[in-house]
């Protein structure tokens, strides 16, 4: 059987060659894939196994003038989802269902989020700032659903709650349209952004550069280990001119006032630096950072965003009387000139009343301002003429914004013959009478009033109020942001300034503002009760104060909306603010000369 046809081996050779040719093709393909295209495939493999998790950089802190923390960050847990290769739709749906129970969110929306994450192949935040009790429940999910993970991130925290809420503003999510604008600057769709107040206007400085950690993930999306990290750069800190003690005093005072509604501004009359700026009712910015389910449903609807300190316009009432005094004295009327107050003032057929029904008797400038005698100012206002008062009020910044740079600041309303003319209406003597006591169409914001009273304190400088003194970058460099800047200077005779300041001192020592008389501190002020045709009167108190014998260092304007009488409602708040500005240990001993000087007049 040995002699079989070995010629058939030619056929075997053909097969053999075919097989080698096939292997050669494989070899060439291997060369192409492994050697020539290696860089490309290596990159794909690398991106396969790595998932970049962004870590929000801690935002810059905000401190008051002494470095006390107003806004900071604290670690909080976020629930993230890393889309793996799980193509099992029912599993993803199951996750959405489970999460919706824990996160109190509707599962359809969650499912949409999860699907988007799969499509974009990016990690997403499912919930942030998770409370501890929920966290323990959620951490169990990690083991059941690959891709779900809890990470620690720095979250904004406002340790003082609602204190300075309006000033600070709040954080929020971007809507899609603003994200398009911000994405160039490295914002992600789930980045937080300052939505109001300083958080918004200093967004660029406060925000740091987000870090990223490169995690190794397996095909199911389980995080395996960290393989690289680009640390974040924290945002720059802001140092404010705010004095947290004064701020707290003012704000608590406003809240405790009869109506609980009001606005207040405390300035340093030497620079225009804002020591406190408050508006009540306000909001606690922490609320915005809570996960949705922890937040009251209608919190946005009931958000008290109206900032009365800069947006509320009110008649200044009697606090305007220093301005009337300045116009009067500058017009050549002697401060010793007296008016007899019988309790009422008749102009034509109209009768204007004084605060005191039985009248103040014969009063001069000091007497008129001390007791806020309307009749004195009616008469002097008529002698000065409305146009002059209007000119002076314009000089003192009424009717124009203070330039503080706060968003939404109102300019108030000038009242006088010129303003009337602009509206093509006539000016009558009765209007002058109203203007003389700061009523009528005259409207001013608390910040304007503070600038005005600060100008009386510093004898003529109208400062531009500012609140941010420095930006302190992470590398330690400090950049001054807003420096003191004069808006304008009011030039009055030195004697006029003396008269104004002495009058305000008399108000505090023996007049309507006695509640604010603090031993050891030279407080000068003026009450105001703005008549409000719509309801209870608005209560004003404006003042400036300094240590005895020294130049004034604090100027303030307090408004309590519907607070009734200025002395009763706004006075105590001013007192608290001044007390906070001059803590007991720092006060100068009560000295006689201050009162003696008053008695000389």
């Amino acid at each position, binding site marked *: *059987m*040995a002699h*079989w*046809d070995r010629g*058939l*081996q030619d*056929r*075997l050779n*053909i*097969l*053999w060659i075919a*097989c*080698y040719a*096939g*292997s050669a*093709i*494989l*070899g060439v*393909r*291997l*060369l192409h*894939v*492994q*050697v020539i*295209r*290696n860089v*490309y*495939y*290596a990159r*794909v*493999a*690398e991106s*396969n*196994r790595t998932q970049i998790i962004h870590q929000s950089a801690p935002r810059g802190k905000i401190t008051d003038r002494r470095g006390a923390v107003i806004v900071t960050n604290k670690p909080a847990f976020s629930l993230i989802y890393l889309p793996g*290769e799980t*193509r099992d739709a029912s599993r993803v749906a199951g996750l959405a269902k489970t999460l919706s129970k824990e996160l109190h969110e509707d599962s359809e929306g969650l499912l949409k989020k999860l699907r988007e994450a799969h499509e974009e192949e990016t990690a997403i935040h499912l919930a942030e700032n998770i409370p501890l009790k929920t966290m323990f429940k959620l951490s169990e999910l990690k083991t059941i659903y690959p891709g779900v993970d809890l990470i620690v991130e720095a979250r904004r925290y406002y340790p003082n709650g609602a204190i300075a809420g309006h000033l600070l503003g709040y954080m929020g999510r971007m809507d899609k349209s603003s994200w398009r604008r911000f994405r160039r600057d490295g914002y992600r769709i789930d980045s937080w952004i300052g939505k109001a107040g300083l958080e918004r206007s200093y967004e660029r400085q406060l925000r740091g550069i987000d870090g990223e950690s490169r995690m*190794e*993930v*397996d*095909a*199911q999306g389980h995080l*395996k280990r960290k393989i690289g990290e680009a640390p974040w750069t924290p945002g720059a800190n802001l140092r404010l001119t705010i004095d947290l003690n004064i701020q707290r005093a003012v704000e608590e005072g406003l809240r405790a006032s009869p109506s609980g509604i009001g606005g207040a501004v405390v300035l340093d009359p030497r620079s225009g630096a804002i020591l406190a700026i408050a508006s009540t009712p306000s909001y606690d910015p922490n609320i915005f950072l809570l996960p949705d389910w922890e937040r009251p449903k209608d919190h946005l609807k009931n958000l008290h965003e109206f900032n009365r300190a800069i947006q509320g316009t009110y008649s200044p009432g009697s606090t305007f009387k220093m301005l009337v005094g300045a116009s009067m004295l500058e017009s050549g009327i002697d401060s010793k000139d007296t008016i007899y107050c019988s309790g009422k003032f008749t102009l034509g057929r109209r009768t204007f009343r004084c605060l005191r029904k039985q009248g103040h008797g014969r009063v001069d400038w000091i007497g008129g301002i001390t007791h806020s005698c309307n009749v004195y100012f009616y008469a002097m206002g008529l002698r000065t003429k409305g146009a002059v008062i209007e000119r002076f009020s314009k000089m003192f910044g009424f009717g124009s914004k203070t330039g503080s740079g706060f968003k939404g600041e109102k300019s108030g309303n000038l009242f006088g013959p010129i303003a009337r003319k602009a509206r093509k209406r006539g000016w009558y003597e009765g209007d002058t009478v109203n203007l003389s006591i700061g009523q009528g169409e005259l409207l001013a914001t608390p910040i304007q009033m503070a600038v005005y009273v600060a100008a009386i304190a510093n004898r003529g400088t109208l400062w531009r109020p500012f609140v941010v003194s420095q930006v302190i970058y992470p590398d330690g460099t400090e950049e001054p942001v807003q420096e003191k800047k004069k808006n304008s200077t009011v030039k009055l005779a030195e004697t006029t300034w003396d008269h104004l300041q002495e009058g305000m001192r008399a108000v505090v020592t023996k007049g309507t503002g006695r509640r604010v008389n603090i031993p050891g501190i030279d407080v000068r002020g003026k009450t105001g009760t703005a008549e409000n045709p719509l309801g209870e009167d608005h209560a004003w108190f404006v003042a400036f104060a300094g240590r005895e014998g020294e130049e004034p260092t604090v100027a303030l304007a307090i408004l309590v909306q519907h607070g009734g009488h200025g002395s009763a409602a706004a006075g105590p708040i001013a007192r608290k603010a001044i007390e906070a500005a001059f803590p007991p240990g720092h006060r100068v001993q009560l000295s006689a000369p201050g009162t003696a000087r008053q008695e000389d007049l």
Partner: protein
Amino acid sequence: MKSESGSIRGRVDWVLVGSMLGLLLIGTVSILSAASPLPYYSQIIQKHFLALGVGTLLFIFGLSFNYQIFQDQAKMIYALVILIMIVVLVFGETNRGTRGWIRFPMFSFQPSELARLGTLLVLANFLDRRAKSAHRVSYVLGAFAVTAPVMALILMEPDFSGTLPFFPMLLAMLFCGGVNLAHLFAMGSYAALTLTMPLIWTLLSLRPDWVSSSAVLGFLIRLREFDIPLLIAIAGIGLGSWLIYKIMRALRLNAPAPIFIVAAAILSAGLASGVLIDHQLKGYQRNRFVAFLVPQADPRGAAYNVRQAQVAIGSGGLWGKGVFSGTQSRLGFLPERHTDFIYAVIGEELGFVGTMAVLALYMLLLWRIVNAARLARDRYGYLVCSGVAAITAFYLLINVGMCLGLVPVAGVPLPFVSYGGSNLAITLLSMGIVGNVYSRRYAFY
């Protein structure tokens, strides 16, 4: 002829054994690496080493007595093959929808592997005995008749990819056995038709716009069912060939009638068995075709596996990432990594050097098998070795080609290298038989 008879050097092909051992070594290391993240790692290792042990015994068994016994016992072998295939259909264990395993206390065995080798031996016997009538149609039809029942039984499991190696085996053995090339061509076209029709239908079902815009394609896709269009098509084929025959006769062109009969028969039978195969195809198998034909159709689906395999191989570079360091394989991006896609693990962890080493070892091995065929002392040994060479080459080309995205994904192992006890044991047995043919290459000693 050198006289080396009697000496052990001349009786055992050490190059064959060496290349085998090389492949086994690379395979074992790669399985250890690829399976290590799996929860049932220790089980896999146990089974692999068990299969290695059994395979070694089978290799020695294959070597130890005259291979001509296999020819003598062809009927017994054939009976055994049919028997175990029936047994598995009745008592087999189902895995992924395929009833293809017989469960033993420590392991499962896939009888279709043994059936393939058995069929090879039986087929070699058949072709050897009918060598004188190799030029006749009966040679092809007979070979087919021997193979078809086994293939049918495997298809009934149903295990489509299990039948694939039968085609290269049959073709190569017929070819090497001296078949009339015209017959082989006829059979080849039948096989091609059987296999391509499901492919065409799958492709057409992906493109309903093509189907609706063309009446021809519309008719083509309706042939998918055993229905009237199919009967019309078969009738059309018969009528068409008769017409062509008549026309050629009229033109006085000499065309023998049997050619037309055979052509018509092949076309009709190919179409019919194509429908049969199409019905046997499972969803995932069809998806593999789809992934190969239109990879962008489903980037996350079946094409994903091939893509990840290529990424694994490509990212390995020249030297690889090192054993136990492949991210694609260890992090689970690579599917079936210790079985069908083991070559991708080698590519990732051992790099171009590793993949080329595997290719080179295979070339060496195939050279030795072909060499054994060439030196075989009888036609039977020659045919057995040719069949083994064809199956081995087929596995290599399809498996590696699949990892590289050159051929559609088919559940085809890489002998010696990929994990799979039955295949490993039977492959070693067949190598033993090849070695046996080699060692008894001299007619007299």
